[in-house]
């Protein structure tokens, strides 16, 4: 896991177009488990996980065949079953992405995506 000293490197690795809104900039400094809520439905705790990772598209949708190619994403948080990432592109539920994380290669099935700034989408999903 990267420590706080790596933040400048992280910022340098973020794609130039990716626009992080202020609340998301704070998470770059954070480490450890994320706070939970009383009626949390997630089975496993999530951890702050601000690292940059290489990404490619593994499986697109029949109605949207597109080539995303290789790019860099900023990961946000991680649990045993899934991960949240930040990227300039919008991803759609059902798409499968391949991520090269420091902990190894993972395939991510996108479950949801939200736009957090003009050029910043937060996508989250499960490892498959």
């Amino acid at each position: 896991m990267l420590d706080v000293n790596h933040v400048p490197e992280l910022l340098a690795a973020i794609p130039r177009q990716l626009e992080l809104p202020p609340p998301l900039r704070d998470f770059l400094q954070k480490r450890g488990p994320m706070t939970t809520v009383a009626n949390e439905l997630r089975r496993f705790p999530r951890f702050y996980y601000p690292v940059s990772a290489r990404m490619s598209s593994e499986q697109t949708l029949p109605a949207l065949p597109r080539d995303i190619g290789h790019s860099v994403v900023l990961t946000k948080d991680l649990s045993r079953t899934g991960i949240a990432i930040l990227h300039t592109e919008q991803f759609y539920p059902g798409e499968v992405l391949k991520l090269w994380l420091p902990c190894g290669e993972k395939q991510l099935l996108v479950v949801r995506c939200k736009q957090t700034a003009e050029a910043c989408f937060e996508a989250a999903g499960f490892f498959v």
Partner: protein
Amino acid sequence: MWEISLDALDASKSSHVLRIERRVVTSAVCLKSAKPPKPERRYVSIPIATLDPTYCHELDLYQQFGEQEDHRLFRGRDFPLSDDDLEKLRARGVTRLFIRAGEQRAYQSYLRENLSNFVEDESLPATQRFQILNQVTQDCLQETFERGDVSETVEASRDMGRHTVNLMNRTDLVAQDVFSMIKHDFHTFTHSANVCSYSVLLAKGLGIVAPAQLEEIATGALLHDVGKTGIPYELLTKPGGLSDDERELIRSHPTVGFARLCRREKLTWGQLMMVYQHHERMDGKGYPVGVKGDEIHPWGQLCAIVDVFDALTSDRPYHRGQHITEVLSYLERESGRGLDSEMVKCWTSIMSRNC
């Protein structure tokens, strides 16, 4: 007789007597429950315009007498309906017959198989054909939504979408006919059928004329709320305020619907965007993604307008349906903010011209 009322027991009786009496009552209950259950006596009304003597011979048809629930067999499988019977019924001003509730599925499959005969029957007025189609669409959606079979829902929606466009292209149905004939209640499948008809009207108003494209829009509209099938009915019709979790669950329906349909080869991107983006708003304040402006597919924008229109004009458990002029004023206020101004202008012009 065995029945003895416990209320009649004198409180001063000893507990011994009370025990005996209670046993007698229990026996009476047992005797009563030993009777065979009453057969299914519920009946569902069906318009006689949907009955074709050549094909509906598998149905037992009943007639209602008086105000009470007095149904008597009119024609059965062994003595099927004839053209002559239909003529006589029409001459007497009878417009509806009844079937047993248990036979509803057989009736629906009969309707689906013979729907094109009715939709293309030039001898029936366009409004009546629309009414039949609308009813069949709602029934079909209810059946397939409740069964939870996505493939069948998609197929049924494509069928119904094709028929809707076919009817609206062939006849002189105007917005007023459509508005006055649809139901204004809160069921998801009723709403979907309404949104389908409205979407075709708006698409035509915007200049889309190709039947294939209109059919795609109609099908997309029928499927736009498919993600709601996983949400408990009690929550969808909850009259009071919603908790954050409940609101979150309801707001997940575009994503859930999209995830269910996104691997279907037969659906186009525009149709999927009607499912995924019909709650997005031009100013970015919608959900699930929060995209704005041109990032919303035109069909998603179109679906958003008719979805809001039907939601506000229909009665829901949590609000009464508003008058059409109030709803059109609301849409105009939202024009250029949450909803596309050109499309709102087109929709208000279609509706105010005819309604």
